[in-house]
């Protein structure tokens, strides 16, 4: 999560769920927490019952809104405008937490003279290259400092998720070179921020977002009132923020607010990222992601092809905990290649494959459509329903040579070749699809040992309860035996490309009749060993000389002293409220990140009410209710010597220890693709013009302009935009889970939400002749699906720029199969992406809605062809050009 990573240092939720009860004001935005995290929501209600304000800001009035003390309706995709308005309010009204901002953030840092803001360049930051469609971030840097990048193309820097948001400039010690502690220098971050958001007035917010000025002012005042020494406010968000072409910047907006109000690192404060899957945090920490290695180490890039030393130089920050990146990567290589990894051969670093800028999921789909990806293994995911543009997904699957689907039930991804909308419409014919399909029944979590990392970075072990039946096997079994068989096959090979597999360490104890590999053995390897074969206790002990091995440095300590810390189940009533003895969280079992900031610069709690971690002057150490997220013995007045490196270069009053300067970044000079500050852009598909700039949408968003399977609706200012006049937003319901593989095949859940439906406001129903309980067809350039109509005031029409506009709500759980079936909302979505994380924009795009059921069989294909032709013809009459396409800044 580069937004949190670049702002604070780590890409994880900064808080733990229970801590929400300590909050005085919880803003839930981009999340429907009550519906999608019901059990976590108990802590929000605890806070509400203690008198906290709970504000839900969302396009839809949901079960979360119903439980909040105040709901504010805004139009989908206008969140940055709203939050930017809050930033402006804080700055204009002097509501920021002076001491916190001055000491703990980079507000005082002076930025390069060449930096040009979007406010001066009509929606583009300096460094825009229209040919490449990218920014050169050089001018965004701290004044007087070089971009910290290397290899062939310094302009690339290290970016996004890869960077873990930790790479500051080349600082020689803890303080950035040029600062103005009075925050008055015109080019200091604080003043840049002021100018950047000056136009985000309450009136602008109301007109752009569709709320009222009064509501906005009430909210802005409320969160300011509930911040400061005595009080704290928290944010909770989920994919309602991430699934936008501006997703990362959206979260950044909250980071800026929380830093300005001094809410980071403090009880009841922070930003709670609510993840949607059992181990989505875990699958990022130990990534099944193309661009990173375990522990957010960078995957080597084809353009940065130096050896290990180059790689380390590029990954190592001169200050902060990323200063030890060499130890992390070498220990990982030792974990993977064991004795084969030696100092002489650079620990087999050259064996790592190289990536390009984007080899992400949606890129893969395009490669499938081009026939370049031939084999696909899908384990516990259902892209045919769960990914944007389902039709493109399924057409891609039909181009494969072979496909392996591992799941509990026969999901749409496994059955696309005989049961899909494309088979129905005749676009695909079973007997002409070459794909060889293996469906492999999977084990449930009850049938295997292992650990999930939950939304608060907590590793929790689950013990196997029963043996899997028949052919059901865990993923652990599948990949382990796959590896074993492959190693056996390649045993004799002399081909250098087979060396990495031949030497891969692959020794895990086998248990039971199924020869299930031991998950504990795997976790031990992840935790790491020293050269005596002893399990390591903490990542501090990792070395760069090859004497330690560790599969994921941030998980080092999860098996400290031979004990599975993730399996600790000490009841909460036997410990304090931070419950440090329940399971284990990274890093180092700290529950509330950056908690050094819960104390003032001198190390004393800001107030009794909000004490968490403080400096004990007598014992000369940091202590408190949580594990201090700071060097335990580093006093608050510590000033790093000039030659200090790594963690030692962080000052005693700089709480963000992963950052190269130890500060919270209001302004992000590097690590992001689309600018150092969040700016309001319209969604990729929007019926509105950008009220601020002629640059309509995020210029850096990823589009697939030439991909026939991913056509876009005409947008505001283009011919044919009236064909898709409504904003559609997709979401989950409490009763189902994501693409439905685990729920719409489950009787007790299927009966609770048995059918696909669409939510519309009564005015829209009237406008389009939709009848409550009847059918409607929702169409985009991608596809048309049908749904039952639920006419409800909970879908509010929005008054935007003076005109009333409607929004359409679509849950996305259904598909062709299961006990309950229905149109897949993702079939309507496009594959334009956020540039930092390659996430699709399914929370705001455009559509049309018509009464009645969709055309069936071949008529559907015909209907879509006609619609696309009509829209293309209309667009040809009036095409729109954005600054992004022509102007270099």
């Amino acid at each position, binding site marked *: 999560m580069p937004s949190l990573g670049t702002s604070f240092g780590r890409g994880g939720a900064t808080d733990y769920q229970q801590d929400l009860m300590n909050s005085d004001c919880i803003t839930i935005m981009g999340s429907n927490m009550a519906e999608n995290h019901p059990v976590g929501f108990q802590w929000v209600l605890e806070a509400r019952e203690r008198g906290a304000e709970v504000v839900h800001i969302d396009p839809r009035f949901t079960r979360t809104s119903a439980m909040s003390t105040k709901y504010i309706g805004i139009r989908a995709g206008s969140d940055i405008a709203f939050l930017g308005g809050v930033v402006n309010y804080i700055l204009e009204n002097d509501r920021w937490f002076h001491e916190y901002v001055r000491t703990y953030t980079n507000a005082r840092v002076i930025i390069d003279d060449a930096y040009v803001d979007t406010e001066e360049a009509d929606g583009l930051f300096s460094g825009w290259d229209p040919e490449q469609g990218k920014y050169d971030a050089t001018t965004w840097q701290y004044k007087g400092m070089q971009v910290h990048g290397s290899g062939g193309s310094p302009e690339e820097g290290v970016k996004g998720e890869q960077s873990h948001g930790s790479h500051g400039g080349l600082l020689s010690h803890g303080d950035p070179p040029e600062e103005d502690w009075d925050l008055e220098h015109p080019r200091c971050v604080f003043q840049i921020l002021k100018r950047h958001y000056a136009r985000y007035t309450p009136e602008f917010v109301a007109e752009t977002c569709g709320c009222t000025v009064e509501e906005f002012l009430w909210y802005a005042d409320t969160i300011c009132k509930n911040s400061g020494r005595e009080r704290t406010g928290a944010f909770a968000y989920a994919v309602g923020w991430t699934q936008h072409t501006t997703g990362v910047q959206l979260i950044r907006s909250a980071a800026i607010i929380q830093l300005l109000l001094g809410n980071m690192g403090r009880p009841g404060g922070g930003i709670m990222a609510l993840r949607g899957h059992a181990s989505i945090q875990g699958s990022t920490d130990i990534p099944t992601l193309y661009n990173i290695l375990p522990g957010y180490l960078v995957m080597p890039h084809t353009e940065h092809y130096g050896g290990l030393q180059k790689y380390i130089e590029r990954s190592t920050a001169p200050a902060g905990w990323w200063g030890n990146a060499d130890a992390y990567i070498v220990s990982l290589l030792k974990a993977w290649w064991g004795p084969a990894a030696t100092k002489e051969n650079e620990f087999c670093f050259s*064996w790592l494959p190289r990536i390009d800028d984007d080899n992400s999921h949606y890129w893969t789909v395009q490669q499938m459509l081009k026939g370049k990806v031939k084999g696909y293994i899908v384990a516990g995911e259902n892209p045919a329903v769960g990914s944007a543009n389902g039709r493109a997904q399924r057409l891609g699957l039909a181009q494969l040579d072979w496909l392996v689907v591992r799941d509990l039930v026969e999901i749409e991804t496994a059955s696309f070749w005989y049961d899909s909308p494309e088979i129905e419409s005749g676009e695909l014919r079973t007997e002409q699809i070459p794909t060889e399909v293996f469906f492999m029944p999977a084990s449930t979590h009850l049938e295997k040992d292992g650990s999930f990392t939950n939304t608060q970075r907590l590793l929790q072990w689950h013990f196997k309860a029963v043996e899997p039946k028949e052919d059901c096997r865990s993923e652990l079994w599948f990949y382990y035996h796959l590896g074993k068989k492959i190693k056996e096959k390649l045993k004799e090979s002399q081909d250098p490309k087979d060396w990495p597999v031949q030497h891969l360490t692959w020794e895990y104890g086998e248990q039971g009749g199924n020869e299930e590999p031991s998950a504990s053995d795997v976790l031990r390897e992840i935790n790491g060993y020293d050269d005596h074969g002893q399990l390591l206790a903490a990542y501090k002990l990792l070395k760069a000389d090859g004497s330690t091995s560790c599969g994921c440095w941030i998980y080092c300590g999860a098996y400290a002293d031979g004990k599975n810390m993730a399996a600790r189940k000490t009841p909460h009533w036997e410990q304090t409220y931070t419950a440090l003895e329940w399971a284990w969280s990274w890093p180092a079992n700290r529950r509330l990140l950056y908690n050094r900031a819960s104390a003032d610069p001198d190390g004393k709690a800001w107030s009794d009410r909000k004490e968490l971690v403080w400096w004990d002057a007598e014992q000369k150490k940091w202590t408190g209710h949580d594990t201090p997220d700071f060097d335990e013995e580093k006093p608050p007045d510590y000033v790093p010597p000039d030659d200090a490196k790594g963690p030692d270069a962080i000052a005693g009053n700089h709480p963000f220890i992963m950052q190269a300067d130890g500060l919270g970044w209001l302004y992000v000079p590097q690590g992001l693709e689309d600018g150092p500050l969040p700016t309001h852009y319209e969604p990729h598909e929007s019926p509105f013009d950008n009220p601020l700039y002629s640059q309509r949408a995020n210029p850096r968003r990823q589009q697939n302009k030439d991909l026939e399977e991913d056509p876009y609706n005409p947008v505001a200012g283009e011919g044919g935009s009236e064909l898709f006049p409504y904003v559609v937003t997709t979401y989950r319901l409490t009763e189902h889970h994501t693409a439905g593989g685990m729920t719409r095949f489950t009787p007790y859940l299927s009966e609770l939400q048995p059918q696909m439906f669409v939510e519309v406001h009564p005015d829209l129903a009237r406008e389009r002749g939709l009848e409550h309980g009847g059918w409607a067809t929702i169409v985009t350039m991608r596809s048309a699906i049908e749904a039952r109509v639920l006419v409800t005031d909970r879908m509010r029409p929005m008054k935007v720029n003076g005109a009333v506009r409607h929004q359409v709500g679509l849950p996305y759980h259904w598909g062709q199969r299961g006990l309950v079936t229905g149109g897949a909302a993702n079939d309507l979505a496009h594959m334009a992406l956020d540039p930092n994380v390659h996430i699709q924009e399914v929370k705001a795009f455009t559509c049309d809605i018509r009464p009645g059921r969709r055309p069936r069989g071949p008529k559907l294909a015909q209907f879509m062809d006609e619609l696309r032709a009509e829209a293309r013809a209309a667009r040809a009459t009036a095409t729109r050009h954005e600054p992004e396409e022509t102007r270099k800044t």
Partner: protein
Amino acid sequence: MRKEDRSAFLRGRGKLKREIAELVKSWPVLRQLDGDPLGLGKSVQSNRSRTLEPRIAEADHVAQSICPFCAVGCAQLVYVKDGAVMQVEGDPASPISRGRLCPKGAATKNMHDGPLREYKVKYRRPYGTEWEELPLEQAMDMIVDRILRTREETWEETTREGNPAKRTMGIANLGGATLDNEENYLIKKLLTSLGVVQVENQARI
């Protein structure tokens, strides 16, 4: 009648008598006389009700688990009897969930034993119109063959510019956010060693 038979008969008769007496005594109409004249309470309680126990009392063992749905991370207790799951409910010890579960977590057993759960490998040959059966071991061998074949066919030692690549772009892997850390670790480790870089999961989605 022989003596033994006779005494057995008498014993049997005695037993029968006692049983009848029991039956009469257990007749709720008579028990009503004993402090429950309206017949609303104890007098009408059946033997089954009187000796009722929660069925989890019969569990062979209880496994501590974690809910597999969203990322709140609720703790679960899994009661097992005769190798089958008999009940899944919240674990009160958890500081996060305090024993509570949402409808999805509460339906864990229903999902685990769902009517549409698959237990056998299914195989569709190229251009095939039907699923076919395939032994697990054979399926594994076939998948291994395909991975190695495709890797061989699509191997990129260098990029077009001549930079090292050491990878295959012909194979992709999707999934992970619903899996265990240990599983993700083996996926990333194995596929990276094979040069497969398109390893992705729901974090992207």
